[in-house]
Every structure is written in C-alpha cells, then in structure tokens.
C-alpha cells in the first residue's frame, strides 16, 4: 500500500477535520471525492506531513510522514491554496523548489523546464507568476509538484480554475504519469473530473470516509438505495401499470407530464424488464430512459445524504 491510515482523526480545537479514518490506498490513481468541508484537504495535509494526527496513525510508503522530511523525495504535493512568490517567474520558482530537493543548479534548471513543459507553461516560463492567469497558476503549482519526479503525487483540487482544454490535458498528464508508475491521490468535489481519471475512489463527508473502492463497488453500495429512473413513453399510464404488475423491483411510481418516474431497489432486474416491455410494444413506444443514478454525481449524492 502507498498510503495507510488507521483510526486517523484530526481535530482543530473542538472542530473535527477527520474522524476515525482507516484506509489503505493502493498504487495507481485514487480519487478523493467530497463536498467542500468534507475533510479532503485535511486528509491530504496529514498524509503530506503538514499536520500531525490528533489520534491514529498515517504511513506513507510504510513509514511515518510527520517529522520525516526524507519522505518528500518520493512525494510531490500540489496544494489547493493560490499562494506563490508572486515576483518570481515560473521558471525561477520551480527551479528554486527543485534546488531544495538537493539538485545542483544545472539539474534543477533542466528539471524545472521539463516540468513546465509537461504542464504547457514553457513558453511563459520567463513571465512573473503574478501575471499568470488562474489556470496558469494552477499549472505552475502542478509543475513544482512533479519537478523531482516523485513516486507519489498528491493533488488537491488540481483542475480548479482550468479551462476545458487544459483540464483535459491535465487529466491526460495525470493518467500518463500513473501509467509510467507514479501513484496519484487527487481530490475534487466535481465527480466527473475524478471519473475521468480513475475508477478507484474514496468518498468523504464530514471528515469520514463514507465509501471506498472502485466505481462499480460503489454503485453496488448504491443498489441498497432506491434508484430513480425517468421514462418518457407514448402511453405513460399503461407503462406504469405494466411495471407495477410485473414484480417487486418497483417501489414507487409517479407521473411528471408524459414521463413516468420510477424508483427501483433492484435496477438490474428493472432495466431487463423495461427492455422486454418496450420490445413488446404493449405500452406503446418508449421514447427516452434517463436516470440520474447513471451519473457518479448521483452515487455521491446518495451516499452523503444524511
């Protein structure tokens, strides 16, 4: 395991940041999902040794991280905060931080250029960071995190403020790094961003991990919750009648215009039967089937619903 925590809690005075978190994060990309205030940033700060656990333990590559600076040779961190030495150029800044990894000036300069190139900032590397756009500032933060080719990248909301094209390129960069052997822990409160990078996710809410595993396992957890499906049909009432008559996979039905809204506790069985009904034509044509539950957003919303 790359990162392992046991009964990890972090308190800020009387406020809980993390609450009894026990997780083992494997190699590869792990997505950390949760709304603002869920504890994602606190988790990352503890895992990167910036904060000390109040109780419990955290191990990175099998070793403690707090007070163990040699671990940072293997770890790169891209923080969420928009903080820089504004008067420095992108190249100067990334190079200065590379020097703190013990590189000589020549190696640090070359590594900084490579990192800036990887995030598509080489052409503006000589410009002061203070003059960078929000997206460029996000990318230069990413550059300082990868400048020393770490084995583990920890990225706190790295796509925030990026335009769609750069977002896509950054996702590609992260996936390429992972394919090359770098493990990545990446946080976001936007689910499709994480979904684009990995199926292995950790859902957090109120300082707790509410679910972990791959997307399919999490969808399995969701099957315990009612799964909502909206069906636009030629004869909605006839369709509803057929659905209710057919078995125990429908828990409720209501109408919304020409759509039937169905809640089902067993989506697989329900979808199979719906396909049969549509094929038979007994309830007229079925025009459109949509389900918010097909989107990871709905999975997340379900799991964090109080």
């Amino acid at each position, binding site marked *: 395991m790359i990162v392992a925590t046991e009964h990890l809690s972090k308190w800020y005075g009387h406020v809980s940041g993390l609450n009894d978190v026990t997780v083992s994060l494997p190699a590869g990309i792990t997505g950390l999902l949760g709304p603002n205030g869920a504890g994602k940033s606190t988790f990352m700060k503890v895992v990167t040794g*910036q904060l000390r656990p109040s109780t419990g333990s955290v191990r990175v590559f099998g070793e403690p991280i707090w007070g163990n*600076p040699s671990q940072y*040779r293997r770890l790169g*961190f891209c923080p969420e905060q928009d*903080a*820089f030495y504004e008067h420095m150029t992108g190249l100067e800044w990334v190079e200065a931080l590379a*020097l*703190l990894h*013990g590189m000589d000036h020549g190696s640090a300069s070359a590594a900084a250029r490579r990192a800036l190139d990887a995030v598509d900032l080489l052409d503006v590397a000589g410009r002061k960071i203070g003059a960078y756009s929000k997206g460029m500032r996000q990318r230069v933060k990413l550059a300082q995190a990868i400048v020393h080719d770490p084995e583990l990248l920890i990225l706190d909301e790295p796509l925030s403020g990026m335009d769609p094209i750069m977002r896509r390129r950054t996702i590609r960069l992260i996936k390429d790094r992972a394919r090359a052997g770098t493990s990545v822990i990446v946080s976001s409160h936007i689910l499709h961003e994480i979904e684009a990078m990995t199926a292995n996710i950790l859902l957090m809410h109120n300082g707790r991990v509410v679910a972990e595993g791959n997307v399919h396992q999490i969808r399995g957890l969701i099957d315990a919750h009612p799964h909502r499906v909206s069906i636009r049909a030629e004869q909605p009432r006839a369709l509803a009648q057929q659905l209710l008559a057919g078995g125990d996979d429908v828990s409720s039905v209501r109408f919304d215009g020409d759509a039937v809204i169905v809640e089902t506790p067993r989506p697989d069985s329900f979808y199979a039967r719906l396909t049969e009904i549509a094929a038979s034509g007994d309830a007229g044509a079925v025009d459109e089937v949509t389900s918010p539950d097909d989107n990871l957003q709905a999975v997340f919303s379900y799991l964090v619903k109080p």
Partner: protein
Amino acid sequence: MTAPLFGPTRRVFELALGEMLWARRTAFMALAAGAPILIAVMTRLALVNGSAVLTVNGSRIGTQAIFETAVSLLYLRFIVPALGAFYGTSLIADEVEDKTITYLFTRPIARGAIVLGKYLAYLLCVVAIVLPSLALVFLIMVPFANMGPLFGKVLTDLGVIALGLAAYGAVFLWAGVSFRRPLVGGLVFVFGWEQLALVLPGYLRYLTIAHYLQAATSSVTSVILITIAAVVLAMRTIERREYVLEQ
C-alpha cells in the same frame, strides 16, 4: 529521520536572500537605514554654516558627541531593535500568513534548515545595510582630523550593532515561529518592556537585550549566547509545531 542541515540551509539562504529584496518590510529597512544619513547631512550642514549650535549645560556639543549619541540612542535603542522586530518576526510568520510555507515544508529538508537559512539571510541583509549606514554617518559627522583616535571606537560600535541585529533578529525569529501574530508583541517588547526595564532599579534589566548591548555593561558572550539560544529554540519549535493555514 534526521536530515542534513548545511546544504539545505544554504539553499534556503539563497532563496530567502532573493525574497528579502521583495519583502514588504524592505521599504521600512531602507528608510531606517537612510534616515540617519539624511539627519547627519542636515546636522553637519547646519553646524558648519553656524546656523545651529547645540549646547548642554552651556557647553557646546561637537559633532563627535552627536555621533556617539546617534549610535547609542538612534541605532542601538531604535533602529536595531525595530529592524529585529520587523524582520525577525516576519521570517516565518509571513510565509505562514501567505501560505507559501507549504512549498518549503514539503521538501526533503529539515524544518530547522528553513529557519536557519532564513535567519542567516536576514542577518546578511541587515548587516549589509545598517553597518554602511553607520559608517557613513561617522564620515559625515566627525571632522576628518578627529577620525583617527575614534576609529577603534567606531569599529567597536559596528561590532555591537552587528551583535544587536543578530540577537534581536534571533529572539524575534523565535517569536515569529512560535506565535501567529508576533509583531505587536515584538514592538511592545522593544518599545515598552525594554525601555521600562532599563530604568527600573533591580535585576529586571537583565531580561532585556539592550542591557547587554549598552557600552557600560556590554557582554559579547551574553549576546552571542542569547542569539544562539534563540535560533536553536526557533529551530526546535518549528520542528514540533504544526501550522494550520486558514482556507
């Protein structure tokens, strides 16, 4: 789990030296170092022209005496402690407030090296500005013919001022590492506690830095010990303390 100190300290020193030129407090330092020179030029011009005569108890005060007063009152009691407070407290506190400390804390270097590198950059910076300022004031105020006998005294003054910058900077570095907003406390210490303790009878004066820098009681060993103790304390404090950056 111990990380090397020398190499990382040098790297942080280089980074911090560049940073210091852009620090918010640099303007204050330039003002603090430049003001005595301006005052010296004006005083000298006034005295040379005869448009002003300074007397104490009916005795005329020469430029040499004015220079000595400037050293003890302007430099040692104001400029040196003020620079120490303004700069020393900011060395780490500014990085925490600006949230740039994260980039330093997530490098494979001991946190103590960050403190030491920044402190040495501070020391070089202030010494390089304040000592030439004092030397210039000396050259402006003291007539050329009187310079020879005073040369040794001026060298001592320069040394004491350098020691003062080291000691105040170190103590306020520790304060900056230990407290969230240390500047107010630093100014109270310098302009409140030290001024008061020095005039009160008893042993309270031993709890000031100014006491050890005063000519009559100067103790190089004490000042060096205070400096080393404060820097070591700051290095140990930062290793143990966690900094919660406000979101």
